[in-house]
């Protein structure tokens, strides 16, 4: 008997399997089947939302199967308020990116196959509760994304794809060692091998050891977010990826980094996270301002949107490391709304690129006259990205700044300037692209959005409005889980052995707790 969550993970893979039996030439049928399975996945995810008990903070719908029993490795999945909406977002964007790929020219079958596999991988990453399983999903996702950028991407695609994989891998392999170390420590404490996250949460580790492990996890997640100064892979990957790839990268893959902090790095090593919080807040704010400044100077629309992601994800990280209810809730909300707005921006940039085969801002101007519908969509999405009140972006950024003012008021002031800078680069771009005289002859022939393009943007737009006007249903489902997590941190913090450490002190006394030797059982003696 397959459980609800496992079905959600396996539906896209099932679809990928079905695609294999469709002849390569039947382009229409391939798309329809892929779309059908993506849509089915989305409806199934709505069913999970329906059954989700919003009063509970813990894990729900847990499924557990032994996988490698000798080492305590299990297939263990579950959902809570932290992961629920990210899963929904993934399932929601699934059909949209397939619709958006309609004009992929070559190797349609392989493309759709990889897209569906990728969706399974992403959903699995959000649902996995076994550290080993999480790592498997986390790492395996790289492969389809690597192919999507590398085969269907722009002129520099090979460089961008390799850079993306190598950056991510260098972080994640160190995380693998940390995962093994953590499991070994758990074995030392309980004499049971387990990679079960909920079990390992209970483990309390000495502070210097926490710092090393937190470092390994945080590096892996920070690369994915990406946190300044580890963001350099992002513009390359975004610019070279095909439109749908960019949407997935921005919409979901980046969220895995911030989700990783929230699910793993912070609750597993709360003391280290508290000590490192000032550093991460500083980097987040630098990222916000830096991303916005660089975005302002871009001449390529896609690059501009890519750098705006660096800035927006800075907000997410700021909220996370405020480590209070408003901050984390805001950060989760911002993850969702960034996924929608930036996803929509990439879709719009892709549409205009398909028509004009250029993304240079200077090549446009006055599109309002020729493409009224496109321009209307563009304007609303841009405003949502700026966080105009009444649209989705505002709620998240407001909560994050609220949380940040409680935790680090000075940094929050700097972060708030990021909001203004965001308005500057976005509105300036909108002015140059949409308004002004329609003076280029190439632009005077363009056609407005097709029915397919309207169909794929309308749901996003509806959600943008809904999330801006009525955030309560989403926030209320997140709240118990966020509180639950904060309590977990709080309870560890208030344990008698703990006194608030400083980061430098911990690293300086690293000798004692350096994770060199786990004396579990030395052999051969």
């Amino acid at each position: 008997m397959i459980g609800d969550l496992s079905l959600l993970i396996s539906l896209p893979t099932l679809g990928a399997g079905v695609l294999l039996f469709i002849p390569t030439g039947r382009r229409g049928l391939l798309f329809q089947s892929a779309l059908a399975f993506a849509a089915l996945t989305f409806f199934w995810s709505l069913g999970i939302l329906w059954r989700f008990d919003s009063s509970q903070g813990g894990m729900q719908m847990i499924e557990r199967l032994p996988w490698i029993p000798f080492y305590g490795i299990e297939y263990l999945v579950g959902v809570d308020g932290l992961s629920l909406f990210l899963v929904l977002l993934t399932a929601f964007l699934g059909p949209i990116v397939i619709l958006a790929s309609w004009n992929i020219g070559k190797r349609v079958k392989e493309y759709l196959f990889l897209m569906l596999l990728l969706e399974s991988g992403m959903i699995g990453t959000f649902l996995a509760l076994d550290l080993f399983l999480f790592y498997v999903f986390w790492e395996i996702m790289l492969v389809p994304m690597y192919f999507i950028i590398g085969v269907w991407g722009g002129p520099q695609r090979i460089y961008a794809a390799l850079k993306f994989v190598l950056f991510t891998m260098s972080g994640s392999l160190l995380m693998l060692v940390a995962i093994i170390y953590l499991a070994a420590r758990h074995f030392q404490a309980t004499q049971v091998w387990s990679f079960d996250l909920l079990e390992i949460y209970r483990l309390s580790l000495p502070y210097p050891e926490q710092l090393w492990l937190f470092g390994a996890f945080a590096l892996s997640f920070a690369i994915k977010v990406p946190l300044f100064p580890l963001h350099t892979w992002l513009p390359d990957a975004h610019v070279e990826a095909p439109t749908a790839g960019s949407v997935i990268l921005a919409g979901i893959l980046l969220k895995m980094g911030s989700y990783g902090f929230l699910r793993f790095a912070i609750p597993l090593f709360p003391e280290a996270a508290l000590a490192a919080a000032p550093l991460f807040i500083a980097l987040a704010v630098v990222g916000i301002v830096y991303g916005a400044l660089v975005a302002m100077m871009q001449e390529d629309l896609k690059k501009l949107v890519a750098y705006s992601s660096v800035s927006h994800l800075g907000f997410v990280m700021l909220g996370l490391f405020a480590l209070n209810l408003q901050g984390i809730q805001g950060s989760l909300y911002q993850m969702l709304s960034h996924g929608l707005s930036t996803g929509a921006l990439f879709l719009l940039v892709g549409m205009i690129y398909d028509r004009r085969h250029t993304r240079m801002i200077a090549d446009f101007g006055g599109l309002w006259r020729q493409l009224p519908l496109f321009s209307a969509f563009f304007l609303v999405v841009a405003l949502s990205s700026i966080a105009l009140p009444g649209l989705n972006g505002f709620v998240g950024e407001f909560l994050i700044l609220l949380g940040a003012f409680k935790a680090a008021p000075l940094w929050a002031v700097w972060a708030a300037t990021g909001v203004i800078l965001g308005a500057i680069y976005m509105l300036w771009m909108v002015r140059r692209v949409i308004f002004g005289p329609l003076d280029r002859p190439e632009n005077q022939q363009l056609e407005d959005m097709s029915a397919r393009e309207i169909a794929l943007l309308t749901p996003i737009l509806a959600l943008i409005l809904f999330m801006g006007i009525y955030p309560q249903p989403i926030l209320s489902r997140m709240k118990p889980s966020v509180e639950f997590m904060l309590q977990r941190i709080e309870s560890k913090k208030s344990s008698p052995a703990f006194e608030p450490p400083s980061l430098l002190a911990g690293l300086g006394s690293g000798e004692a707790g350096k994770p060199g030797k786990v004396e579990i059982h030395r052999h051969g003696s």
Partner: protein
Amino acid sequence: MEVNLTPLLPAIEVVLTALAVLLLDLFLGERAKGLLAWISVLGSAIAMATGLLLWGSHEGAFQGTVLLDNFGLFFTLLFLGSAIITILSSVHYLKETRILPGEYHALILLSTAGMILMATANDLLLFFLSLETMSIAVYILTGMWRERGQAGEAAMKYFLMGAFATGFLLYGIALIFGATGSTNLSRLSAFLTQPANSWPLFLIAGFFLLLIGLAFKVAAAPFHFWVPDVYEGAPTSVAGFMAVSVKAAAFAVWARIFLSRLAPLEAQWTLPLWAMAILTMTIGNLLAISQTSVKRMLAYSSIAHAGYLLIAVVAAGEDGGAALLFYLLAYALMSLGAFAVVLALKEGERDNEDYSHYAGLGFKRPFLGIAMSLFMLSLAGFPLLAGFTGKFYLFRSAVVAGYTELAIVGALNSVLSAVYYLRVIVMMYMEEGGVEGKSFASSPYLYAAIAITALGTIYLGVAPAPALELSRISFLSLR
């Protein structure tokens, strides 16, 4: 005196098959030579079946010079499987290179027999003799493609280096015999139960010489210099066979001598091996990055994988031993598979071993492309494939034994290795204009070999529990 031949049965069967192949070669016409491959595969399969029947036995023979236990059987099966894959994938290659099939198959089988004896030897002298049996056969195999200039050079180089290593081995064995009065491993381990301060110093020297000799055979840095040239000059199928079987045989001896019988000496060799592991991984990967030929890249990467395996030797104990065996199995599958795909690109006289020849292969020959991608991803350590599971257990054994730093170096090295493994995938799927590659119809046996190894690579990645248990049980039978 009664002679118990049961523990030798698999080896005897392999030798008989080899002799049968040599004899039949004289009588078969040119067109019927294809039969020889079938006889070799059949003989190996029968030996494998015998091995399975003997599973669980713990028998000695010839005054304890041979000891057949699960550990020996695990390796017997591994060597035979590798020989079968090698024979299947070289059927076509032999025709195109005009390598004599009779001699080729017989030598593969004879070296396999030597390996089987190496894994079951319980005496340093028998170990030495079987090592030579294996090595001499492989020296000849290296130079078998006589029409190519590099072949002679490679064989000569391999032979000289091998002879050099043999010198170390023999001198080490002589010192050990001088110190303890015996070459039997059981008696050696009894000797080592004496307190450490009563061991003569030249006993330790003997073990280190033994260690160096083995390091030559597994191509651990700094004893790896022969590898790239020899692999390059050798027929591609033989290069794969060497990377897998010869390495596994040397590691089998390594595990039997150092991880079990001589475990009391652990404190002596841990540090040098620790350094050797780090050096081997790093050098292998760094040099592999700059290669332009896929075959040469695989040669350097085999050095890197020897380094990963050394992690398990350093970690030692039950976990280290089991991880070593499992990784050898995983490496055998993915490496033989990769070499088989290299074979599939051969066209007549040309080897087509450069990266550029792989351009567009993924779409021209989807099967070869997918299989090669699997092998490359597995070698780089991506999850749900054999290589990842193998690395996971290696790192785990290192962490448990207190060598977290080795796991970290191994992890960083995996990132390095991704650079060159992924480049093959880049060529296959993201570039255009390489060679066609063989179709299924023109070389079905090669395709069969690739299919078997690819399925094995996936199986060990998705459901590793049974194989892992098998390697653990096998290693534990050493105790």
